Structures are given as structure tokens and as C-alpha cells.
């Protein structure tokens, strides 16, 4: 009798255990299936987003015959890069792009950082609104008056014209990134520095700026990239001596027969600096691109 109860009890016990084990296994199986599916989808996403860039890089190492031929194979060559530097004088355009991006970024920081600090600390909200408007007004609206103004004062085709125009994109962006950051810094540190006799400028330079370094890095990288990539302003305002890379590549394409290998080599060269910056500064770029959208 007692034996019987014991055995029923134990069999019921094992049944429950087995059921638990089975549902655990099912959960495991589901987890594995969903996990695999997730990785497959991630792989698909990466392939889609990388493919054009990879294809561009591959074509840069191909001869025109291989690009045109219906087959898939090719013999790698460096000829396209030699042509781009030798025949098409790309170093010159790279230098132009570099000069314009560097100066427009530095000047934008010089104007934008104190401006953003003043907006955050002294509540010049109207200036913030005006700078925000720069992000809304289509850039081409500025381009017609600039073109006329710059022609009148002989600035068309100069570095100055390009730098000033690129600053219109980067300075508002810098303010956009910096204002929330300065607002988030504790006022107390700055106040105690003021009590200790520091000037307003001293407080800004010695206390606020060092604390804001991460945001400044973001703002600097992004405005450099914006300028490096800018096409429309440079298309109108650059001259033969100041032509930047995007415009040079565009002109390169409009020749009668397209040298695809050379074109792709040029495209690789213009993308490379941005790619390198992205690899090492990914965190800062993400925070720059998502600035203002999350908890804004």
C-alpha cells in the first residue's frame, strides 16, 4: 500500500520533471532558431549596406576591359590610382578639400563654441532659434545671393568663399550639439570659479571647454565630414584652382566616355579619410548623428 502510493507519487514527479525538461528544451530550440534568424538578418543588413562600397572598391582595382566585360573575374591593377594622381592631378583637389574642411571647421568652432555657451548660460534663445533656422532653410536659398555678392567683391572661386559657405552648415550644427551639452554641465563649478575671481572668459576656457571635450570632438568630426562631403556649395563657388574633391569627381564623370576604373579609384580616395575617421571615432559619430533626436 505504502509502496504503491510511493511509486505513483514518484511517477507523477518524473512526469512533471519531464514536462519541465521538455518545455525547457522547446524554449532552448526557439532561442536557437530566433538567434540564428537574427544573425542571418544582421548579415543580410550588413551585406546590403556594404555592397555598393565594396563594389566601388573592387572596381577601383579593375581595368576598363574587366569592368566592361560580361564575366565576373578580373586581374587586379593599380593603374587607376596612378592615373588619378598622375593624369587627373587629384592631390591638388584633395589639398583643396582638406584646406576648406579644416578652416571651416576651426572657424565654426571659434564662433560656435562661445555662441553655444552663451545660449546655454545666458539664455540667448533667439540666437538658438535663428541658428536652428539654418538647418531648415534650403541651402540653395543662400547660394544665389552669395554667388552675386561674392562675384561683386571678387571672392568667387576663392578658398574664402568656400570656407564661409561651408561654415553655414557646420556652425549651426556645432551649436546644435553643444547647447544641450553645456546646459547639462553643473553650474556650481563655474559659479565657484567665478567667486574665486575667474573672469567669464576664463571660466569658459578653463572650466566649461575642458569638460565639454567629448561633445567638441563630435562637433569637430561631424563638421569636418560635412565640409569634406559638401557638393552643392562647392559646385557653384569653387574655381579651377580651388575645386574640391566632390566637384572634381563630378566633372571627371561628365567626360564623353567614362573611365569607370579611374572614377571608382577617385571615389575610393575621397571616401577613405571618412572611412578611417568612422572606424576610430564611431562612438562620436553616432552621438553626432543622433544629437537632438533622443530626449531632445
Amino acid at each position, binding site marked *: 500500500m505504502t509502496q504503491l502510493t510511493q511509486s505513483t507519487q514518484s511517477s507523477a514527479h518524473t512526469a512533471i520533471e519531464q514536462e519541465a525538461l521538455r518545455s525547457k528544451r522547446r524554449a532552448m530550440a526557439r532561442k536557437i532558431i530566433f538567434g540564428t534568424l537574427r544573425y542571418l538578418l*544582421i548579415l543580410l*543588413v*550588413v551585406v546590403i*549596406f*556594404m555592397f*555598393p*562600397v565594396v*563594389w566601388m572598391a573592387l*572596381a577601383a582595382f579593375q581595368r576598363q576591359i574587366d*569592368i*566592361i566585360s*560580361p564575366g*565576373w573575374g578580373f586581374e587586379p591593377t593599380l593603374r587607376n590610382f596612378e592615373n588619378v594622381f598622375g593624369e587627373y592631378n587629384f592631390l591638388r583637389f584633395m589639398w583643396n578639400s582638406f584646406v576648406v574642411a579644416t578652416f571651416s571647421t576651426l572657424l565654426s568652432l571659434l*564662433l560656435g563654441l*562661445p*555662441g553655444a555657451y*552663451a*545660449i546655454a548660460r*545666458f539664455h*540667448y534663445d533667439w*540666437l538658438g532659434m535663428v*541658428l536652428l533656422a*539654418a538647418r*531648415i*532653410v*534650403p*541651402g*540653395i*536659398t*543662400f547660394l*544665389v545671393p552669395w*554667388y*552675386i555678392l561674392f*562675384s*561683386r567683391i571678387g571672392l568667387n572661386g576663392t578658398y574664402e568663399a568656400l570656407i*564661409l559657405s561651408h*561654415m553655414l552648415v557646420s556652425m549651426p550644427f556645432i551649436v546644435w550639439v553643444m547647447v544641450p551639452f553645456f546646459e547639462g554641465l553643473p553650474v556650481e563649478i563655474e559659479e565657484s570659479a567665478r567667486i574665486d575671481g575667474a573672469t*567669464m572668459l576664463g571660466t569658459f576656457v578653463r572650466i566649461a571647454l575642458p569638460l565639454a571635450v567629448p561633445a567638441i570632438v563630435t562637433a569637430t568630426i561631424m563638421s569636418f565630414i560635412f565640409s569634406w*562631403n559638401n*557638393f*552643392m556649395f562647392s559646385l557653384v563657388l569653387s574655381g579651377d584652382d580651388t575645386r574640391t*574633391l*566632390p566637384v572634381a569627381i563630378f566633372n571627371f*564623370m561628365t567626360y564623353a566616355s567614362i573611365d*569607370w576604373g579611374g*572614377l571608382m579609384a*577617385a*571615389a*575610393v580616395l575621397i*571616401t577613405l579619410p*571618412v*572611412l578611417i575617421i*568612422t572606424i576610430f571615432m*564611431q562612438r562620436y559619430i*553616432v552621438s553626432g*548623428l*543622433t544629437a537632438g*533626436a*533622443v*530626449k531632445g
Partner: protein
Amino acid sequence: MTTLTATRTRFRLDHRFRRRFYRLSFILPAVIFVVVMMAFPVVYNGWLSFHEWTGSARRDPVYVGTENYTELVTESDRFFPAVQRTFLFTAVAVSLELVFGIGIALLLRDAFPGHNIIKTMILLPMVATPVAISMAWLLMLEPTIGVFNKILRDIGLTPQPFLGSQDQALWVLMAVDIWQWTPMMAMITLAGLLSLPDEPYEAALVDGATAVRSFIHITLPLLVPTLLTAVLLRSIEALKTFDIIYTMTRGGPGFSTETLNTLAYVRAFEYFRLGQASALLVVFFVIVLGVSVIFVQMRRAVSVRQAQ
């Protein structure tokens, strides 16, 4: 005694004035830049929209009243189609970017080995130079030598004209824009997802809600403000899309990919009809501003409702 108070008051006034001036000096350079480079052009653009001018130094602009505007409205063959295309382009591109962006953000939410490398790879389309990207797509889309038609031929399908066709070109450009900007939507959504509180999910788990239900009823509503801002930022940019359109099709074939931005560019810098271009730009600006205001109002309404 009185002189002392007077000096003190004067000192205080002086001090206050100096303080104000000091503060103003922080933003003065930025303000001068804004006035010269932004305010002046906008005002000048408005003024020029009532004039006829080719940009010649010898002939001054001629006042023509509202003629440039009436010309836009009566000219139905290029202006209205461009307006329509601008909106279609923006609506299709931004909504698909939003859907794909949310999907990708959900895929990447839980950290996994190598997720940083993956994120860097996905960032590439939007940081790469648009002109370079356009060139790569032009090569891939080339009807005879492009990789897409190569693949189509290899698997026995009909090759497509892509950018050579008036019916396909605009959609192909949308696809390129989606490729370029979905990552931004994904990054913003991901940042939004990671900043969500845990409590609602724990409660949902206790209630036995499925993953899909908790996404629709908890995640999505909490994300709405972030998503609206992302859509606002993207829509403003999409309305103004220039680089990929101008470099890949120049508004063609025919005028089948001409948007307000490329039309204004052509008017101003290829035809040198500066007055007409300015009128177009005023209209363009009003449209972009209108769309922005609508989104800002929507976002405000949502945050007010959520606060209640």
C-alpha cells in the same frame, strides 16, 4: 553719504552694462556671421523674387512685381510636377527608412559579439561622400555593364533600364536615398530603445505579454517622440535632396526626376534666371518650413499627451 550712494549706483549700472556687453561679446561673432551669411541672403532672395535679372553686372535687376510667382503657378509643365515629385520622394523614402530603421534597431538592440564592428559598417552609407556613393550606384545601375543587370541576365530575367527610364528613375533614386539614410533612422531608434526604462517590460513579462504585443503596446508608444524627431530631421533633408539626384540624373531623363531643389538650381545656375529662381526658392522655403512646423506641432502634442 548721498555722493557715495550715487557712485555706488553708477558703479552698479556701469558694472551691469559691462557684464551685459561682456556676455554679448560671446555671441557677437556668431551673430555677425548669421546676419551677413544668413539673414542678408534670405532677405535679398525675397527682394530678388520680385525682379528679373540674369546676374549681369551691366544690367541692374528690373522690378516685375509678382510676375515670377504667377509664372510659377501658370507654368504647369515643370513646377507642379517638381512639387509633386519632391513630396513623393520624401514620403516614400522617409517612411521606408523609418520602417527599415526600426527593424534594424530591434535586430541590434541586444549586444552581441562584434556589434560595434557591425554598427561601424552600417554607418558607412551616411558618412561616405554622397557624390562618391552616386558614382558607385551609377556603375552598378549601368544598363549594359552594371552588376544588377549582370545578375538579372545570369538568372535569366530581363535587364532593366533603371536610370535610363522615365518610369523607373525616380524610384531608383528613392532606393539610393533609402540605402543612404536608413542607417540614421536605425541609429536614432537604437539610441531611443536603449534609453527606455525597464519597468514596463518587467510588468508586461509578469502579465505574460508576448514579444510582439509588448513591442506594439509599450516600445512603440514610448518611442514616438524620438521617432517623430527623427522623421522631422530626415524629412527636412529629404525635401532638399540634391547631391544624389543632380549627380546621377541631373533631373532627367526628360524631367522625370526633377525636384524643387534641382529645378531651382537649374533655373539659377544653368539658365541664370535669377528672379524666377528666387521666387521658386521662396516657395520651396515655405514648403520646408510648413512641413517642419507640422512635425514640431505633432511632437509637442504627443509629449503633452504622454505627460498627462
